[in-house]
Every structure is written in structure tokens, then in C-alpha cells.
């Protein structure tokens, strides 16, 4: 590899570079081998368990919020018009975005950030017309679905769960809604309760999420959950899953760990630690909440129903125990009425 100092061959690579390339190659091969093993395990129905690793510990030491904001400034750089289609096509190819449904010509998205939050052509996402359906608020992959059982925990991976009250905030509207339903006689309740005169039999508990009634002849409701992961190439706007009234918004200023599948297997309390915005309210069946959780690359969340809200802001010191910032929407108790399919939020780069 080494030549005499006088006549170096320009095509010969220094030994240290070769060693680095070999090391990176070996690491990449090991990563691919691990991913293949995980894929095979998933195909054979084996549930994955939490496996904290060195990478997770390393991520904990990084200034991920600063990195996220830097990434945001970098991707908001205005590109020359001639370069825009190439840059956006390259992104689409890398992350499997569908360019056929993009609302505007590619050269009209001045930056990668603008392209990332693109709207879609009208009719690209027809809303399920069944009045009894609850629709997906986003494009993505279903990570978990189910009914909340005793303890109100959502499983992150096998053997590790996080509590819904930690995710949504301990001052949840659960009791308030129950109290309202106990005293009000609204049409929403009429649908649920079917001609019942008094609603005082409703009671709710975070330890046992089922809403029960004293008489066994009446319906029992439960709490359900659905976790959806959005890939980098996916459409990143959040829409309303049903007709509902948004009573409250809660903003948790947290960390910005990545939230990909690998991160869910290696970082405990991932969703509870990350920066997120929670909307809580009421639909025809009762309680409804949407939590939009940020990540390193997609760190900020903009609300269509509250454009002034700023997330992923620089902070002197981040306190995990800090209470979330809340806003109750007016008029109190009724809030903002949002229709099924209406846009409520956008995930932004950085």
C-alpha cells in the first residue's frame, strides 16, 4: 500500500482509510444480519422484546433537540429552481414517496422542508363514507392496536409498556367528561345511552378504564388505542379521525429520540419522553385523544386549529418532570368542532 515518498501512486488508498472502510463495511453487514434476523422472527410470529443497547445510551448523551433544529434550518434552505425537482425526486426515491399525488409541480417547493409538508391532490385520500367508521388520521404503518385493559397500559414491545396517563398527561379529561355525561342531556349521549332518563350511573377510573353502569342491561364502553408510525416518505399531515369536539391541547416539551422500529425496541418510554402535542376531546362515543409525537428529524408539530403554538423551541434546561403547557379551547366544555377528515396538524422537519 505504501509507495516511496517521491513517487506516490494516486490510485493507492492509505492503510488507515482501508481499515476504516473495512470496519464500516463490517458494521453495516452486522446491522443487515441483525435486521434480517428480526425480520425472520417477525415473520414467524415472535414478539420482539426491549433490548437496550449502546446506541440507545449514546443517543441519550446527544443534544438531539439542537440537532433537530439544525436539521430544520438546513432543510429550509431555499433551493435554486432548477435543482428543486432533482432534490425532491431524490428524497422521494430514497423514502418511497408517491410523486403522482403531490399537489404542486416539484419546482414550486422552494425547500426540502416545504416538500416534506406537501399537500396532496384533491381526491388522493377519500374519506371512508361509513358514518360508523373511525378513519386513520395519517398515512403510516400500524404499530399497535387494541383495547386498554386493567392498568391502562399500552405495550411498546413485549415485556415493556407505558401508561396512557403519562402519554396524554395526568390531568386528563377522562373524569371531566364522565362528570359532564352524568349531568348533561346532549344528543351525543342520547345515541350512546338509548333513551335512558338519568346518567348518574356512569363512573370511570384510570385503574379500570371501562365505563360501567349500575344496571347490567346497559351497554359497556371501553378505551381503545392505535399507534401509527409515519415513515420519512409518508404524507405528514394529521387529519381528524371522526367528527368531534377538541376541548384541550397539551404540549409536552421533551426529548427528540428517533421513533423508528429499532428505537421502540431499544429506548424505554420512547413516546412518553419525546416532545408531543396531545389533543383531547369528545366524540359521539365518548372520550377521544390524539397524541402527535415528534422525533429527531421531524421535531416540531404545527396545529391547524392553533397556528400560534410553537414546538421544538430552544430551552436552557430540559426538565422531564416539568408539567405540560395546556390550553383549554373556548367555549369551555364545548371546545372546537372538527369534522372527520379535516386537517388538524402538520409534522415539520426540525
Amino acid at each position, binding site marked *: 500500500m505504501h509507495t516511496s515518498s517521491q513517487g506516490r501512486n494516486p490510485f493507492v488508498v492509505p492503510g488507515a482509510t482501508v481499515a476504516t472502510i473495512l470496519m464500516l463495511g463490517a458494521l453495516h453487514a452486522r446491522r443487515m444480519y441483525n435486521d434480517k434476523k428480526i425480520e425472520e422472527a417477525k415473520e414467524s410470529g415472535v414478539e420482539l422484546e426491549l433490548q437496550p443497547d449502546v446506541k440507545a445510551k449514546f443517543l441519550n448523551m446527544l443534544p438531539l433537540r439542537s440537532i433537530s433544529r439544525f436539521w430544520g434550518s438546513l432543510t429550509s434552505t431555499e433551493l435554486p429552481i432548477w435543482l428543486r425537482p432533482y432534490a425532491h425526486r431524490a428524497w422521494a426515491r430514497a423514502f418511497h414517496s408517491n410523486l403522482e399525488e403531490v399537489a404542486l409541480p416539484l419546482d414550486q417547493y422552494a425547500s426540502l422542508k416545504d416538500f416534506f409538508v406537501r399537500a396532496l391532490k384533491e381526491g388522493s385520500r377519500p374519506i*371512508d363514507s361509513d358514518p360508523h367508521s373511525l378513519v386513520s388520521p395519517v398515512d403510516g404503518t400500524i404499530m399497535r392496536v387494541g383495547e386498554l385493559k386493567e392498568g391502562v397500559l399500552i405495550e411498546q414491545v413485549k415485556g415493556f409498556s407505558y401508561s396512557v396517563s403519562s402519554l396524554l398527561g395526568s390531568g386528563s379529561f377522562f373524569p371531566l367528561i364522565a362528570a359532564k355525561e352524568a349531568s348533561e342531556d346532549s344528543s351525543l349521549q342520547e345515541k350512546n345511552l338509548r333513551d335512558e332518563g338519568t346518567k348518574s350511573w356512569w363512573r370511570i377510573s384510570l385503574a379500570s378504564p371501562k365505563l360501567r353502569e349500575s344496571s347490567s342491561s346497559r351497554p*359497556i364502553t371501553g*378505551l381503545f388505542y392505535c399507534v*401509527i408510525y409515519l415513515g420519512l416518505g409518508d404524507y405528514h399531515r394529521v387529519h381528524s379521525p371522526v367528527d368531534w369536539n377538541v376541548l384541550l391541547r397539551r404540549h409536552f416539551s421533551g426529548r427528540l429520540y428517533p421513533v423508528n422500529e429499532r428505537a421502540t425496541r431499544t429506548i424505554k418510554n420512547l413516546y412518553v419522553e419525546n416532545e408531543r402535542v396531545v389533543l383531547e376531546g369528545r366524540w359521539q362515543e*365518548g372520550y377521544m385523544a390524539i397524541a402527535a409525537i415528534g422525533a429527531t428529524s421531524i421535531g416540531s408539530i404545527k396545529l391547524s386549529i392553533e397556528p400560534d403554538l410553537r414546538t421544538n423551541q430552544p430551552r436552557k434546561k430540559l426538565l422531564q418532570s416539568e408539567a405540560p403547557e395546556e390550553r383549554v379551547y373556548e367555549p369551555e366544555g364545548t371546545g372546537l368542532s372538527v369534522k372527520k377528515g379535516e386537517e388538524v396538524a402538520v409534522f415539520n422537519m426540525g
Partner: protein
Amino acid sequence: STVVLVFQALALKKQEDEASLSEFRFCVDKGDKIRMGEALGR
């Protein structure tokens, strides 16, 4: 990024209400790809 939905819905069907009420059922499963506007459950 990730979105988590938590909502209340009818969980158990009572015999006398069968004609008019039905319990909530998801129409997706873990690992499924979904697009905005498609039904998650009914």
C-alpha cells in the same frame, strides 16, 4: 413521527341491544400499511 389515538367506544354487546348496537371492531392489524381516510375500525 408517530400518532397515538386513544378513544372510547362500545366494548361489549348486550343481548337485548343486539338489534341496535354493535361493539367497536378494528379493521386493521399490527404491521398493516394504512392511508389517511381509510377506516381503522367500525
